[in-house]
């Protein structure tokens, strides 16, 4: 196993775990940002520059802002201590649910035929070819994602637009 890969995965998993354990929401949100940066480092290690920079731009730039704003704007009542499971049956049900999800994920990973051993040199892919691919065969997927994002944006605007009466003095 490659030293860099170990380092990056320790960074990602470590920051995610600590983020969950912290009580201060802002600190955990910022640690999540560290985790996303780790994923970007992972892409860089794998040689996919375009995806890595897109990851940093979108996650570290924008999504982190959304998370932090959400944490700030929602009412934080101080009474929110961690809910420890009050009865044994709740604990068991939580274990079963968690275990089930974990099982499905691990099963999927192990099930797919990945010939890890013959990982050839990373294909040198220029941005132009990625562009060509996106616009060519995968154009439909790109357009759908674009549509999805616009709808999400419009939804956000509708929620945020409070029906303030048009201020009279801005009538000029």
């Amino acid at each position: 196993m490659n030293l860099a890969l170990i380092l990056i995965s320790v960074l990602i998993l470590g920051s995610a775990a600590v983020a969950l354990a912290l009580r201060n929401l802002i600190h955990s949100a910022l640690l999540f940002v560290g985790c996303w940066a780790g994923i970007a480092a992972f892409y860089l290690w794998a040689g996919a520059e375009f995806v890595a920079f897109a990851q940093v731009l979108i996650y570290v730039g924008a999504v982190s802002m959304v998370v932090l704003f959400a944490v700030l704007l929602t009412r934080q009542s101080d009474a929110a201590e961690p809910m420890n499971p009050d009865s044994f049956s709740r604990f068991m049900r939580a274990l079963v649910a968690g275990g089930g999800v974990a099982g499905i994920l691990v099963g999927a990973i192990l099930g797919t035929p990945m010939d890890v051993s013959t990982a050839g040199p990373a294909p040198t892919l220029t941005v132009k070819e990625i562009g060509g691919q996106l616009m060519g065969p995968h154009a439909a997927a790109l357009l759908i994602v674009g549509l999805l994002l616009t709808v999400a944006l419009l939804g956000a605007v509708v929620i945020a637009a409070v029906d303030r009466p048009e201020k009279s003095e801005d009538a000029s």
Partner: protein
Amino acid sequence: MIGTGSAPSPFGQLSGPTVRKVKDPFHGDLLEVSMGPQHPSTHGVFRMDVTLDGEVIVKLKPVFGYLHRNHEKIAENTSYLGSMPYTDRLDYLSSMSTNWAYALAVEKLAGLTVPDRAQYLRIILAELTRLVNHVCLVGFLFNDLGTSFTPLLYAFREREKIIDLFEALSGSRMMCNYQRFGGCRVDPTPEWLAAASRLVDNFPSFLDEYESMLTGNEIMLARTQGVGRLDPKHAINAGITGPVLRASGVNYDLRKVDGYGFYPRFDFRIPLGDHGDTYDRYMMRILEMRESVKILQQAFRELPAGPIMDPKAKLRGFRPKPGEAYGRLESPKGELGFYLLSDGSPNPYRYRVRPPSLINLTLLEEMCLGHTVADAVVILGSIDIVLGEVDR
């Protein structure tokens, strides 16, 4: 949501806080922000307790008194002449016209007459002070609008020339202490008069350059037009005077109404605004400066020779007969009045100043409701207050 349109009569408005009840969770609680007294843009020690709903002002309480120096009580224990230097400290941007207002009140009290040359000199100095004051105001207004000092320094470059004239005449740049009861203290030399008229002649070219730089500026239009609208009825009820009142379209200028001094001899016009917003108040000052230049040019042409002091006037041991008098004039900020009650002793029994800045400040809240914090700063700048006069 409160817009200025729905504000009730000003006195009702000022009594209680009209805070909206919080109903839906999205509108969080209101943010109480205290701006001042030590704040870069409040023109001296003046505080505004602003209650914000997000960016919009819901309630604004002006707090002043930090510069109170007990001016009127001190005046009751000083001779009439002794109070004259203190009047410079009232509105420290226009000390010549404040001196004249005080001298006017004392002359009305003691029945002194003023020779013609002194009357002309008083008008020349009052109009020069109006130029200084309006140039300062316009400079500070642009500073509040956010330029990094450039328009302010251009304005101050012109102000320095006029202030140097005051220094050459009265001995001090801002604390002139120039007028006396019955005339003026120093007779200007011909070189002084030549320098003053040269300055006045090329003042309009400075104004043209200033206006070309800023009056058409899109950001200026966006930031000031429709901001801080003042309704003429409210202005009259609150006793507002000066350019702030004329910007709302009310034709009230003491130079025409009272016709004190030799003003009826000069022809000049009074600009009036239609919208009463910050842009109109800014343009009032610019147009008034152009009118003052016309008055000054006529005054320099017709300045007669002769004594500058009424020979009967006594400098010391001045004891006006018991009685009262109220002398007022159109200072650059509005109607500045001095009420004097004499009991025959060398000290006035009661000495009261009608400060235009303080009275123009009463409607600050009504103008700022519904605007953002940035607008409140600009509206305050457009009212042109000087804390020396507000707090006395």
